[in-house]
């Protein structure tokens, strides 16, 4: 049995009279410790797919089974706890909490899992160190550049050592150089920690870092190919 099983996932958005089929009966599997890129044109349903996989959005039908657990069958509180312990998120616009400094933003992910404050603090500083931000730990998001902010959000996604990290266009708001550095960082972390990365992007260069590429178009899977190294 695969690590993540996606079975017949569909998502329909209804806004009044109009309804959009954002996902149409999608099924595939993700292995443990792989880097999977989701590629496709804008509006094809990549984010929708990722959100349904991670459980922050509800599919209209279908199942997502992670490590044997059907996450959409869980109660909201259980699902939330599952996310807190097993997943990390990297958003396109970072979504850092503006009133917390870099270290505190990272700590947040630990504190939701009940890690004592002192330990959370130590782990956060370590993680920020790993993403190369040891000098910036006490800076607030507004004092950081885009690339630094995204590093903080990556640190936040990694600090509690989750099994899966979801990233929705993590480099979407960054320049090429910074993007490359970030992807190197992600690759490195994947190697050392054996974590599963699911990255949404429409940048071909980024997908080159991954083990497999999932091509999506109009809510359907076009292909799922392995990348030769």
């Amino acid at each position, binding site marked *: 049995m695969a690590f993540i099983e996606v079975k017949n996932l569909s998502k329909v958005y209804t*806004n009044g009279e109009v309804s959009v089929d954002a996902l149409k009966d999608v099924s595939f599997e993700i292995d443990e410790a792989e880097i999977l890129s989701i590629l496709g044109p804008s509006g094809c349903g990549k*984010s929708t797919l990722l*959100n349904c996989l*991670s459980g*922050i*959005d*509800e599919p209209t039908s279908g199942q997502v089974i992670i490590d044997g657990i059907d996450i959409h069958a869980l109660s*909201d*509180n259980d699902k*939330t*706890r599952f*996310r*807190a*312990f097993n997943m990390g*998120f990297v*958003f396109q*616009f970072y*979504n850092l*909490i*503006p*009133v*917390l400094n870099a270290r*505190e933003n990272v*700590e*947040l*992910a630990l*504190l*939701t*899992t009940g890690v004592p*404050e002192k330990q959370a603090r130590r782990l956060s500083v370590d993680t920020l160190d790993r993403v190369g931000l040891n000098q910036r730990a006490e800076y607030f*998001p*507004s004092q950081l550049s885009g690339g630094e902010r995204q590093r903080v959000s990556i640190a*936040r996604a990694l600090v509690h050592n989750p099994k899966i990290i979801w990233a929705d266009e993590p480099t979407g708001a960054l320049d090429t150089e910074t993007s490359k550095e970030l992807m190197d960082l992600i690759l490195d972390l994947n190697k050392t920690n054996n974590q599963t990365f699911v990255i949404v992007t429409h940048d071909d260069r980024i997908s080159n870092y991954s083990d497999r590429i999932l091509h999506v178009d109009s809510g359907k899977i076009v292909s799922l190919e392995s990348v030769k190294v």
Partner: protein
Amino acid sequence: MLVFLAAIALVVVSFIVISMLSDRITFKMSFRNIFRRKANTLLVVAGSMIGTALIVGSLAMNDSLERFIYSQIRETLGEIDQVVVTSAESDRGYRRLFQLDEVKELTSLLDEEDLIDGVLPILAREVTVGKEGSARSMDRSLSTSAAVMGVDFSLLADFGSQGVSLADIDPLVQNDLPQVLITRELSKTLQIEVGDVLEVMIDTAERLLFWIELPRVMVSGIVDAQGVLGYSGLRQGMNNAKIIMNPDDARRILRIGIENSFNELLISNRGDYLSGAALTGTVIERFEESGLEDEFTMVPIKEQRIRMATQGNVGLLFFALSAFAVFAGILLLSNIYLMLAEERRTELGTLRALGYTRKRVARAILFEGFFYSIIASAAGVVVGIIITMQILEGFVDLVSDVSMLLPIENAAMAVSTFEQAFRFFIKPESIFFGFFLGLLIPLAIIFFSGKRISRMNIVAAVRGIPQVLGKKPKRFLRYLEYILLGVSVLMVYSGISDRNGAVFLAGLTLGLLIFPLSFPFKRRRIMESICSISLIVFVMLSNHVTFIAEQSIDSIPLMIVKGFAILFAGLLLVVYNLKTFDNILGTVMRNGKNRSPVVKVAIAFSARNKLRTGLTVAMYAVVVYIITLVSIIPYSQEKMLEESRNDVFLGFDATVFAAGLQGRLPSEAEIGAIRGVESVTTLDSAFTRILLPSGRYSTVPAYLLDDEFAESTIHRNVVLWEGVSETQQARENIWKYLSQRDDVIIVSASVLPEVVLGDNVQLYLPAKVEIIGPGFFMPASPELAEEDISLGYFRVIGKIPETSFTFFNGIFMPRSVVDEELRSDMIVDSTFLLNASSDKDLKQTKQEIFDLSIRTNSLSFFVDDIIDLVNTAVRGIVDILRSFLYFGMVVGIVGIAIVMFKALYERKRLVGMMKAIGFTRGMVFRSFLLETSFIVVVGLALGFVTGTLTTYEMFSSPFFEGFEVFMPWGQFLFMGITFYLVSLLVTLAPSYIASRLSPAEALRYFE
């Protein structure tokens, strides 16, 4: 209620504090949010502070008024709740004295049931008093009328819940004269000091009997005429000159030979001076069971006074004002905290994704709201108190007792105005209540919007997509809707079956406004509009429903429900049809060059955020609504008072009448001799008993008019019976017509509402009529007595309308109808009416009439002075209300400032985009200002229209029968323009900042 609120507040606060301590990181986030945007925080705190201040201020206003009214009751009655007197009257209208044994059964019965906490037998009688040798003087500075009150000082100390302590009185000077206490008023009037000897004259006739030695007393102390000491007996006038002594001395001085006799028994019910009145009903029941009913009469004096005071228009205005001002404050608080919750949405969504449970997310926003609201409500209490204090300080000297002045019930009361300070006062309960509301409302709003956000789709929250409600809350709302509909049906049903207008109408309002929610969104707008309009129409016509019309006379809740119904219906109508307004505005504005995109943007924003626009419009509407009410009602009354100038003294300029029992009247000739007096007529009054259609007998004063009256009166406010309205003479001068007949009468609708024009009624002169006190009279027996003298049958040819503002209410008939012999027996009172030429000597004439009345110990009034007095009194109160309302306007203004500042933050990027695609600075600026204008104008118009509708509705109730609505257009115009301009002014800052934003900067802006 207070304990309940305090308990809730305590639980909520301790819950929040405990969870803060246990969730440090959330606490940290919430705490830092305070300092994130300082201007924003300042606005939130300022706004919610003003909301609280308005609530506290309204409560303080009400408390001050209540205390103002009650302090008068307290000063003149103290803890006296009922007065027991004998039913029978002796010569000159004095009551038969009684001895304590006669009422022992009653007092012990009341005592056993623990209904009372004091009985006090007193002997009270009006006398004339002066310093030794001057009581007989005609000079008012040397002799004055005062009340002798014989009372056992030791009983006084036990009377009521607090008792009256006379401990600080100097020990009595040894002397064989009776030792007395006098009131400060008496001491001032006659310059009396402790140790002075006074003379007491029991009968004014003794003035001439100079050889009779008048009894003397020595003053051993001066006391404040407050509480029981302020009470001078049922028969007493309003002056507070009193001589207090022990009953034995009083009997000796008043030449009463019967040992242990008293003329009044004062009873204090258990409880303080106010709460005791609640037991009056039970006490009267016991009295009726005690078998004393035939011999004695129990007067529920406290209850009567409270009712008279609280039912006045002013009390009502204040109450309505507070209710709506509190509502406006609540709206402001709701608006602010809804916006706050909205602003935090993205962050809260992120937290959810990171593993914050719903509960914890709701808590995070609750913490932040807690910081603001605890500071703001504490500050709001202080600010509310300070502002109300300031407003009231401006009106220290106010002609008081307006509540008694307005719907004039009897002349004696109306004359008794006295100046008194309307001072700031707030009950501790009100402070707490305001504080709790200021704290709990924001917390409740924050809590529910936090809940709502925590329940929303995480992706939607993170991306800032408008909320799409999940299935769960929808079902919950559905159930809530059904429950409320059920409640409203129940209320309507029970309202009809109990004939309770307020409950019925509240139910109907709730039902009609909720019912449309069950329709799908598209049709809801139409349904809501239909229901709102029907509700307004129904309320406007509700006085055609008998039981509602009946209650609109004295049911304050009903009036408030009606007001809210109209206001809410109007609000929903507008909010659901905002789009329509947009279209109209859009069409109107399309003409100008460059305008179109500006208008489009401005309107798109205000129409998109319905809830926020609706709340802001509502805030303006509520404030303007109250101002409209408070402006139209007194303005109309003032206008009508001016118009009814000729009604006050029945078409004469002035009146002269006897002042209390000690007064004497000048003769008609004396008055006529004064230069400038053109005509004088004597208005004799007797009590008559009239057989009503219901079979009951009613005793009312009959005014016997002479020919001079018919000649000189210019009073014409009489509704004619159609049987005489054909006659030319009757149409021209109904009084002349009346004077030439001996079988017709004119009646006042206010005292004889049951009598119908054209009725043929039988009149009697009752053999005995009791006067209980100024304004209170009743027949010796409710049934027709055998010895009553029939005057025959009379046709009612005219009615003086109930709304006529006049001192003389009763039956009017020619003097010749009662033959002379009877007349001298039955006439209880005579009054002179006179006309003065209105030339430049009027002042002189007035002065001479005044001098004459001083000399004769009578009273004189000119109609213009009365009107001035009433107008000043009304204006004084209204000015207080109005200045308070200007403070209320701040609510609307702060509201719009907050909305626009928030709009600025929210739309920074949009503004950047607009500028990037070619909006000039001016266009951005204008679009912001236009948005303000849209909200303000709609709010102003809505408040004005609903306020006007409510006034018309109020004036259509029987209570205001005959009242006309006069619109103070000038005031409204001024208010509207001021309000609008100030609103624009406060939005200038955010609009200006928006217009100056650099597009690049703005586009990059996100947190």
